[in-house]
């Protein structure tokens, strides 16, 4: 089970980069099709708001790959 968790860590990292790339590409395409304020604002919001989330997803994938989720803490002493 732990090796599956680690393997999927790589998938999450690739997925994070790929999905964000698609988002940016779609945003640029939509803005070039209809360069109005509304379109620019909407797509800029998406690109900005999903950047930190994507970084979080990459960290999640990295931690999974490194085995950080092989064992989950059973008490708060393991967290702080």
């Amino acid at each position: 089970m732990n090796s599956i968790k680690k393997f999927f860590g790589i998938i999450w990292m690739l997925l994070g980069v790929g999905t964000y790339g698609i988002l940016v590409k779609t945003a640029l395409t939509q803005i070039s099709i209809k360069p109005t304020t509304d379109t620019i604002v909407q797509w800029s919001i998406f690109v900005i708001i999903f950047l930190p989330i994507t970084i979080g997803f990459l960290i999640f994938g990295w931690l999974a790959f490194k085995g950080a989720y092989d064992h989950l803490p059973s008490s708060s002493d393991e967290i702080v």
Partner: protein
Amino acid sequence: MQSISEKKLIRKVIFASSVGTLIEWYDFYIFGSLAPIIASQFFPKTNPTAALLSTLATFAAGFIVRPFGALVFGRLGDKVGRKYTFLLTLVLMGGSTFAIGLIPGYEKIGFLAPMLVLLLRLIQGLALGGEYGGAATYVAEHAPSNRRGYFTSWIQTTATLGLLLSLGIILITRKSLATDPSDSIRVFEDWGWRIPFWFSVILVGMSIYIRLKMHESPMFTKLKAEGKTSVNPIKESLMHKANLKMVLLALFGATMGQGVVWYTGQFYAQTFMENTIKIDFEQTRTILICAIVVATPLFIFFGNLSDKIGRKWIIMVGLLSAVVLYRPIYHQMISVASVTDSQVDNSKSHIDRVLKPNTGNGYSLQNTTTFTVYENGITEKKIHVDTLYSSGIEKPQLADKVSKELPTNRYWMMVALIFLQILFVTMSYGPIAAFLVELFPTKIRYTSMSLPYHLGNGVFGGLTPFIAVLLGTMYTGDLLVGLWYPIIIAGFCLLIGSLYLSNKTDNNVND
């Protein structure tokens, strides 16, 4: 076993926390429920779709700032205390809601109007970001360990009940502003929409009074007395690898899926009924109200069940049901409201014309309402307005307003389809407060649980109606294209949650 005084205390705690949280959700959702009217009042009317999108963007802005509220008020809650923090969020929410109801329209003060609306909407988002984590933490820290799922599930009902309250107040106000129903609607769209915003002040006042009488959480009081509160909760939540990994797991393995399921079942469903399959405004609201009323006790049921069998698999089954059944459910919704295979019943169809005479403006309005009754019982109502100038020139309205009224059998079928979607909400949302509380230690609990909750529920979930509508405008050939967003997000969350989350309940939240 709990003593009678302990039982009384926990009931008071649940009541004080739930009422306040319910009011905050009410405040937050009246804005969303009145999006089209707010668009016409505060945004330039050149294009109705652009106006609606602008409002939804403002709506989304309310959601996007929620994680920032989680950080700001979470930090305060972990340093100063739960009680005073969620009192502050209540005051901010109530004040900004009331103020939205006072802002003059775009026609009177120009761009200042949408700017003020946006500012107040951002304050609402910040306040909500601080509220939920505080209420859930406060209840969980009072609850006995074996009943935490049950007690916190009362907090979980508040988001849905807040939506219910907002729909109810809007419907009542819309109907009671004049004796003639069409006049009442007109008055509502003119200024009556402000009443639900003003009403908030009474609710918030009551809730502040109740909450002021409550004491601080015993766990936090003990922590503070021992001088063990966190010096920098944000840093400890996000910079310590051991805690950060749990924040990320909570977000990607539970809250992002739960968020999209929540907003699809209760918001996108409403938008879809009203804008895509054109069901009448009032029927849309009452369908949602009926489904919510029947489904709400299930939050408590699944919260309680999670105390017995664990939280994880209840949440995962909720997500799985949504992923598998959303498209069939929405196909069925289209079919229930469809008139394409039905003949027109000419004996019941009719046309009404009402002339609203010239009141000194130099023109009269002629409303022509065509009622087309189909053999399957659906009545299609088309309203056409002509402006008749005294000079004799007629100017037709740009677009006719079309809506459908469902007959009783189809109405209840639609209620059942919405109920199914809310059932998935109750499974994925009912146990989640207890699940989040148990993931994090007391000294950084408020901050640590609020952040993944508001990123998942606020950003992923809150953007659902907006992204779904946007997908619909990009790919016009498929009416259900908007569903791919919640299906994909819930699908990944299901996979991550199933793989990485533990079903073990952490009974000790005192540490």
